[in-house]
């Protein structure tokens, strides 16, 4: 053991820090993968919300899927008032969802582009509120917006590197398609991130499902290698570090 310790960013998810030596390594890219409805967006939003309310760390939430109105409404159920933090300038919710009216319909795509637009948008918000936490929810939607997968793959690496270079810890969510065994639609999700967290909501009997969470990898960390119970409570997501998931 050396004296050198990696600076950790608290996740804001009760129970999760204990599984990963106190938090995500600061400045890393972390992938939150899971099938539909497993709680990826809630976990990522909670990371941003608690980042402010418990650790005074401003955060940028970039939504590529759900509209900010729905996100705010859903998070209020957990007592998390995003609107308030937004007004106080502690968080930015960047609306890049398809619900945006001004977005033109793409009628042509040539394999000669980069994602410097997305990068400029995110960087602008990071600077504005001095953010140290950034969420991109969800990477998977890019597969529907663009056809040129090879460009996207390359650009994701560049985007993540440029965001984390500012010292920000970046959470990227990825939806695992229903019948898949990988971590997402691009096949590079695991390489993109230095940490991977997988969320499950598995059927454990004919009439019930059970939520759980697994730390698949986390560079530089001695993390739990078991699948732990997780629940979505009235206060948001909570992990039970001592409880091993009944499904595993």
């Amino acid at each position: 053991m050396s004296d050198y310790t990696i600076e950790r960013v608290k996740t804001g998810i009760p129970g999760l820090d204990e599984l990963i030596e106190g938090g995500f390594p600061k400045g890393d890219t972390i992938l939150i993968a899971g099938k539909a409805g497993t709680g990826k967006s809630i976990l990522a939003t909670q990371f941003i919300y608690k980042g402010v309310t418990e650790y005074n760390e401003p955060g940028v939430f970039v939504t590529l899927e759900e509209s900010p109105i729905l996100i705010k409404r859903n998070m209020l159920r957990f007592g998390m008032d995003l609107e308030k933090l937004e007004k106080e300038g502690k968080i930015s919710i960047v609306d890049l969802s398809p619900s945006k009216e001004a977005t033109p319909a793409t009628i042509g795509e040539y394999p000669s582009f980069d994602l410097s637009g997305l990068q400029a948008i995110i960087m602008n918000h990071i600077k504005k509120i001095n953010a140290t936490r950034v969420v991109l929810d969800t990477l998977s939607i890019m597969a529907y917006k663009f056809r040129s997968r090879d460009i996207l793959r390359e650009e994701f690496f560049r985007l993540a590197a440029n965001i984390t270079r500012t010292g920000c810890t970046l959470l990227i969510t990825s939806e695992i398609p229903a019948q898949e065994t990988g971590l997402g639609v691009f096949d590079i999700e695991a390489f993109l991130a230095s940490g991977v967290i997988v969320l499950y909501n598995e059927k454990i009997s004919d009439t019930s499902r059970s939520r759980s969470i697994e730390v698949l990898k986390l560079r530089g960390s001695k993390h739990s290698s078991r699948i732990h119970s997780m629940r979505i409570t009235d206060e948001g997501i909570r992990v039970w570090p001592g409880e091993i998931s009944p499904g595993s």
Partner: protein
Amino acid sequence: MKTEPTESEADDSNMIEVVFFKSDSCAFCPRAEEVIRETINDFGLDTFKLVIINVSENPEAAEEYGIFALPTVMIGGVSITGIPEPEMLMKMVLGAKVMTKKKGES
């Protein structure tokens, strides 16, 4: 919105607005801009108003229109990403022309 209006400052109510999004770091943008300017020139300058938005200087505009990828050119409510083929641009332009004509008639 901070833009660099080029070509014409004249009465532009009947002109078709071509919005070109670029950035300082985008390697394909200069070529895309060339193609767009050439195509516009072929049509006749008085038909178009070219608005160039440098996203590095004006990220708010990219956010407003939800533009992730550069270069992107927008005419009317539609866009093309990447270095456009002149024929594709022509199609877009013709579509936009029909729209403005309809607007003028009604």
